[in-house]
């Protein structure tokens, strides 16, 4: 491969061979987990058996609708692409024979229109515009969809100040959590006097329940690379680091492949696109610590030091990696940059609300019907996301809350569902935007247990430097555990609020500073649940083991004996063909019986 010049990009993007049928299997980590590998093998077998002409089998990253995985898209010449969901071996045979070879769409396997419109209709893909459409391992496919065009524009026609100006005008704010204006960060970094500057892509995605960074890198790694080159030009950086979470092996492979390909094409390395600009990227693997997502401790980890946060100032833009000015941005932030440069600041700032521009990717997960990644304009309401895009609550249960912002965020109750989402609105109600996790909870979720869960997470991840954070999270966890086990005291709620205030005020980094949010927001909106645990000794949602009992509804039990064979401690007994009974003395409340019962006969109370 030879190095490219700007005009070569047009050539690669030009009309390709055309006139072929393209089958794309969506193989992100989620797709593979659902069995996409098998689907691909089956398709390959069919192709080699029938040897059809002009059929291309390709793979891509996640298509977004994780709950209907495995998925594939079939695109015949001149026809609209058709999305097939919930694939199995039989379905593949049928689709292959009827659609790929015969040209007739297999309607029963297609994603129904209602779901298609609901899930995809309200989305506005900018960062995710290539998801499921290109093979992430093939740089030509990225270039064919306008890839590296923004970079070419920035390198050939814009001065660094222009690029920064454009990003500032677009109103882009950091997608990693705090929402600091990206243009301003770059400007500060550029203004710091130094011979060397660095940029970092923060791919440590520690927020449990959010996975947009993984998905972006797995399905469109070149967008991140392109964004980083543009940023490097604007800031005057010569080297970039990508800090990638250790739990994401596939993303690591895709990104390594992408940087290698870009280097061969002369899109990375020395003399990029023949413009004389030098910039390269190295990838650094994390080792599993939530606090490493925090920028100063990420830098420490990158340098091989113990990842403890530092006092700011100096901010990384003044003194970052190896003491040099460093601009650190989130994966999604970097991936937004090429589109802004290509389409202009005005186009981007047209989308969104007064203070928050553009689109944001959310991972809508938990007890909703359609789980997956959605990219929506800022200012959309929570109700639209949960009920229109998410399709409502699973098994038609009642909605209880939606948790945003991960361990630093809070739970938002039903009364605030019509809240338009942007950075300010979310913090007003005691949560944060965070990295975009959105965990929907139904009536069977206990809010005290959720608060306890987050504190358990945080006490394990606190680096231990500040005693307020280290001891405070521990004590709050102990109090919450006591409440969940029915040992709570009436004054505990006020004590929690008091400790929360101290932890917030006295901790150095954002981990401690936001650690009390899950506790405070659940107390604020669900105080009655805390009180039920403490004064009535009852867990209204039926989650906290010490406060519940399992019972079989004799009316509903059909004596199918499924639960009897499932129970690992033989706590379920009864006569054959008669309703069964759970012996509360033996039962260890694992809930396996209620999972297997087909008649909803197991009651939790």
């Amino acid at each position, binding site marked *: 491969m030879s190095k490219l010049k700007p005009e070569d990009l047009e050539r690669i993007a030009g009309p390709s061979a055309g006139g072929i049928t393209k089958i794309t299997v969506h193989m992100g*980590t*989620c797709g*593979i*987990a*659902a069995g996409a590998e098998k689907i691909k093998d089956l398709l390959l077998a069919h192709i080699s058996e029938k040897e059809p002409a002009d059929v291309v089998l390709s793979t891509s990253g996640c298509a977004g609708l*994780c*709950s209907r*995985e495995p998925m594939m898209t079939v695109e015949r010449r001149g026809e609209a692409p058709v999305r097939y969901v919930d694939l199995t071996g039989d379905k593949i045979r049928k689709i292959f024979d009827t659609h790929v070879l015969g040209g007739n769409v297999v309607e029963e396997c297609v994603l129904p229109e209602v779901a298609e419109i609901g899930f995809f209709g309200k989305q506005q893909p900018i960062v995710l515009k290539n998801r499921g459409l290109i093979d992430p391992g093939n740089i030509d496919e990225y270039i064919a969809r306008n890839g590296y065009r923004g970079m070419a524009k920035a390198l050939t026609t814009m001065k660094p100040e222009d690029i920064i100006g454009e990003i500032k005008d677009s109103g882009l704010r950091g997608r990693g959590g705090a929402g600091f204006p990206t243009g301003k960060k770059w400007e500060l970094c550029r203004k710091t006097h130094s011979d060397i500057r660095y940029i970092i892509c923060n791919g440590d995605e*520690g*927020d*449990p*329940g*959010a*996975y947009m960074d*993984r*998905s972006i890198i797995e399905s469109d790694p070149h967008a991140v690379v392109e964004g980083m080159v543009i940023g490097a030009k604007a800031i005057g950086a010569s080297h970039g680091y990508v800090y990638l*979470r*250790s*739990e*994401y*092996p596939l993303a690591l492979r895709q990104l390594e492949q992408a940087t290698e390909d870009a280097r061969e094409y002369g899109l990375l390395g020395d003399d990029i696109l023949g413009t004389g600009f030098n910039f390269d990227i190295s990838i*650094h*693997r*994390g*080792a*599993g*610590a*939530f606090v490493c997502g925090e920028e100063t401790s990420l830098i420490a980890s*990158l*340098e*091989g*030091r*113990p*990842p403890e946060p530092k006092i700011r100032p100096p901010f990384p833009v003044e003194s970052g990696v*190896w003491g040099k000015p460093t601009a650190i941005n989130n994966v999604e932030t970097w991936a937004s940059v090429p589109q802004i440069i290509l389409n202009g600041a005005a186009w981007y700032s047209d989308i969104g609300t007064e203070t928050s521009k553009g689109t944001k990717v959310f*991972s809508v*997960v*938990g*007890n909703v019907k359609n*789980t997956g*990644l959605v990219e929506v304009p800022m200012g959309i309401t929570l109700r639209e996301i949960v009920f229109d895009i998410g399709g409502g609550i699973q098994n038609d249960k009642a909605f209880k809350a939606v*948790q945003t912002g*991960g361990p630093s965020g809070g739970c938002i109750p039903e009364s605030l569902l019509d809240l338009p989402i942007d950075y300010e609105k979310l913090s007003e109600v005691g949560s944060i935007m965070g990295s975009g*996790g959105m*965990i929907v*909870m139904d009536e069977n*979720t206990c809010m005290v247990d*959720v608060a306890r*869960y*987050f504190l358990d*997470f945080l006490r394990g991840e606190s*680096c231990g430097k500040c*005693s307020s954070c280290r001891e405070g999270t521990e004590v709050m966890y102990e109090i919450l555990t006591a409440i969940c086990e029915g040992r709570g005291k009436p004054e505990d709620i006020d004590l929690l609020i008091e400790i929360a205030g101290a932890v917030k005020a006295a901790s150095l980094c954002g981990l401690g500073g936001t650690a009390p949010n899950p506790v405070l927001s659940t107390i604020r909106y669900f105080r009655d649940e805390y009180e039920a645990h403490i004064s009535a000794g009852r867990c209204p949602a039926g989650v906290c083991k010490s406060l519940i009992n399992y019972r079989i509804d004799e009316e509903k039990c059909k004596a199918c004996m499924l639960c009897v064979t*499932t129970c*690992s401690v033989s706590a379920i007994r009864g006569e054959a063909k008669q309703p069964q009974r759970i012996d509360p003395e033996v039962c260890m409340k*694992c*809930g*396996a019986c209620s*999972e*297997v019962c087909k008649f909803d006969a197991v009651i939790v109370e």
Partner: protein
Amino acid sequence: MNDTKTVGSVLVIGGGIGGMQSALDLADSGFKVYLLDSAPAIGGTMASLDKTFPTNDCAMCVMSPKLVECGRHLNIEIITWADVESVRGEPGHFSVKLVHHPRYIDVAKCTGCGLCVANCPVRNIPHFDRDAGLPELKEEDSKRITGILGRRKGQRGPLVSVLQDINDEYHYLPEDLLRHVAHHLEIPLSEVFSLATFYNAFSLTPRGKYTIQVCLGTACHVKGAPRILDALERELGIRAGQTTGDRLFSLEAVRCLGCCGLAPVVTVGGDVFGEVTQAGIPAILAEYRKAVEVENVEIKA
């Protein structure tokens, strides 16, 4: 001078928690106290402890008030960075000769801001006996570790990468290797251990052939992941963080595998399983048990 009249001053040797307390008690009873320590500062070992037996009190919280009090007490004179050379005399009339080590810093002017510490170019002085005490390695281990260290040569801040490489090859961090790493990279062993124990990806005990990761992320939590973990613990007869007796499975709880759409998620040896139920667990494990049996049969054949 009357030889039987005793002098009202006391020398306390050692400025740890015991020395400080003795000095304070004596000073409060009206004696002039010289508090001596061979380290550059008083405080001793307690400062490096996290908690103290039996009350679990935080060590620093116990000792810092005493440090301050010793510093301020008008009856206490602190002499640090000095050793006792000789003691002469008898009870009531001792004279002690001290050797004061050079400090190179004007104590009267130093404010303890710590800037000089951060800026001193000499770092990472190994605090253990350089060559003595390095464990013998098997030839194969020695080759592997040399290979790993060679690959990372010249990389700035290589420690985490080296540990990751060892972890990739051995699935855990053998202590002997860590000692060699510390030696070769000239990094204090304590720092190597502080990283090795900080990150979740590292384990200091051997792991089984397959690592089972149970996601306890938020999305998985609300979909019943804790029950899945309980069920796996029962099925395997081990707790999270442990390895089965036959070294086949290690069980780990992790926070989010990035497949939240398929919650609850479990991985076995890197293979991802989505929407796992308690009832489905035996079937998943059986596959891996079978794979190993097949392997064993092949080896025997």
